[in-house]
């Protein structure tokens, strides 16, 4: 099953999205416009241009220093884009929903709570002092454990529903957030300032040392997801059809959710929480890919995510002179697009 494509998967229509996905998305309609390879090549070309611009243009001062710093930022962007793009596309497939993003399960709340707890218990200097590989790993594992517990608890029963699981995650997230609010008011203003920098997405302050590990995780997860890309296509057909085509539905869901939570948790631990970024990349990827096949959509989402981050950072830095603002802008615009899309699509 792994490498032989199930016959229906090649033209897998998404549940109800076919109607508004345009002619390219339909099962029967012939694909219009560019072939997928050309679309992917075009996106890759744009990314390459953006990367070159970002790395080499407008360097002031010593070349070596600026170049090294930019390479680090680029590395972080690659990881963040990969994690959110792949994580969101896979998550949307397993939840049968084109609008939700994995952040909704409470990752951000768990992250904010652990960071706040650290500062509240050990003081403001602890954040800088404990930064390092062990903390990154612990933080990631904590968030993965949270989602897996939720999943085991709520999805294992006979009446398991992914919506119920999401809702419980969301509710626990609200509770964590109110606990964080309370802890934050106990902090001294200077401690709070230290904490506040961690509560936003920040692409420009990641350490070089984290990148190899994070990159390795991305590679491994990427390989596993790629290996299962046709099974993902089959999952789009719904539980019954997928099961009758020989997919172990629940096991597949468990594996995929584990991978998604690993990606998002790692990206959050590395560069802070981002809620709507994944949604935007996945949405654009489906529009530009012109197909629902994961073999195309996954790389497309990654390329679009990377293009958004690199191009956005370039524009923010050199046009608006606000280099730290990228994630805020993306979140805001992403949220607005989310709202408009929700209204236009007319279902969640």
């Amino acid at each position, binding site marked *: 099953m792994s490498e032989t494509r199930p016959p229906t998967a090649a033209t897998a229509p998404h549940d109800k999205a076919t109607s508004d996905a345009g002619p390219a998305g339909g099962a029967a309609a012939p694909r219009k416009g560019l072939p997928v390879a050309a679309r992917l090549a075009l996106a890759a070309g744009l990314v390459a241009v953006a990367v070159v611009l970002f790395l080499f243009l407008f360097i002031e001062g010593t070349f070596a220093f600026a170049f090294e710093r930019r390479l680090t930022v680029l590395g972080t962007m690659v990881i963040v884009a990969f994690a959110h793009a792949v994580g969101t596309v896979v998550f949307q497939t397993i939840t049968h929903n084109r609008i*939700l993003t994995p952040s*909704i399960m409470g990752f951000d709340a768990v992250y904010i709570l652990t960071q706040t707890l650290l500062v509240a218990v050990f003081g403001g200097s602890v954040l800088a002092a404990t930064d390092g590989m062990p903390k990154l790993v612990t933080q990631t594992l904590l968030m993965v454990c949270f989602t897996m517990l939720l999943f085991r608890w*709520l999805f294992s029963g006979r*009446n398991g*529903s992914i*919506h*119920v699981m*999401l*809702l*419980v995650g*969301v*509710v*626990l997230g*609200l*509770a964590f957030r*109110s*606990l*964080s*609010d*309370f802890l*934050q*008011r106990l*902090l001294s*203003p200077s401690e*709070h300032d230290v904490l*506040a920098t961690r*509560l*936003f997405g920040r692409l420009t302050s990641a350490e070089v040392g984290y990148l190899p590990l994070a990159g390795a995780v991305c590679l491994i997860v990427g390989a596993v997801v790629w290996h299962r890309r046709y099974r993902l296509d089959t999952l789009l057909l719904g539980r019954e059809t997928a099961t009758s085509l020989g997919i172990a539905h629940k096991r597949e869901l468990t594996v995929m959710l584990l991978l998604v939570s690993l990606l998002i948790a790692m990206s959050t631990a590395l560069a802070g929480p981002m*809620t*709507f970024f994944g949604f935007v990349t996945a949405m654009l990827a489906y529009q530009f890919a012109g197909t629902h096949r994961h073999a195309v959509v996954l790389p497309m989402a990654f390329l679009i995510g990377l293009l958004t981050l690199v191009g956005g950072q370039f524009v923010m830095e050199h046009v608006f002179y606000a280099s730290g603002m990228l994630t*805020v802008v993306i*979140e*805001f615009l992403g*949220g*607005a697009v*989310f*709202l408009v899309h*929700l*209204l236009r*699509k*007319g*279902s*969640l």
Partner: protein
Amino acid sequence: MRRLPLASAALGVLALVIASLFIGGYDIGPRSLFTDPDAREMFLISRVPRTLALILAAAAMAVSGVIMQMLVQNRFVEPTTTGTSEWAALGVLLLTVLTPGASLLVKMGAASLFAFAGALVFLVVLSRIALKSQVIVPIVGIMLGALVSSVTVYIASSTQLLQMLATWRSGGFSSVVRGSYEPLWAVGAIVVGLYVAADRFTIAGLGRDTAVSLGLPYRRILFTGLTMVALATGVTTVVVGFIPFLGLIVPNLVSMARGDDIRRNLPWVVLASVALMIVCDLVGRLVVFPMEIPATLVLGAVGAVMFVAMILRQRGKAHV
């Protein structure tokens, strides 16, 4: 005879109220009220306003929950799961940034206006999307809340007000003294208003088409209901911060026990939410005596657990 259970419940709540009046960091007994003028002064400045605020805020949130659940026809909505509270927070923050010296009443006005806008946005979004399942509704609401909240947090962080925002969101009743809680009386009026209009809301809760065919001015009821919710949320948010889940849990528990007649349920909803709020406040005050944990936080924890239990119960009965 029929009123006996209600009367005994009221007595129980009264006992809680008295406990709330006489427990606290400053030792005030019933006797010292008559002998010690300082104690009496303290009692009137701090204890009485605090207890009144607890009662009014609890009633406000419970009633908001009842109204929203009727208008949206979904058991899982209330101001914190529809983003309405987040909008109120945005309103207050914007006012704090633009005119730092604004009075409490102006802040409440701004909060209520934004809460109204937020509730409208929620309803518009909800009316434009097809719902595949009951639990989707609170997910939509919470996503909208997250969207608004990200704007709020960004504004707060760029104006160095982030910690103030956290303080103020987690609120609680410890800072309630004479002179700062009085606007909550407006909420009392809302509760009475709902009692008078209860039957109309019950019919509106059957859905737009049924309501219209029964000759009800549906839009006007919708507007009235939203205004009530917005006022209650705005005022409560400014005085005591977010009160999570109260408006969701209590009305649902009462409905489970007694059915859906709003007017007959209302006294029970109000009594039960006041009792829950006071118990949470007492727990918060006694656990780390003489310090205190905000009642809102205790309620958040208790509420989250009860909410989850409710969802699971619903799931057990039918597929959601």
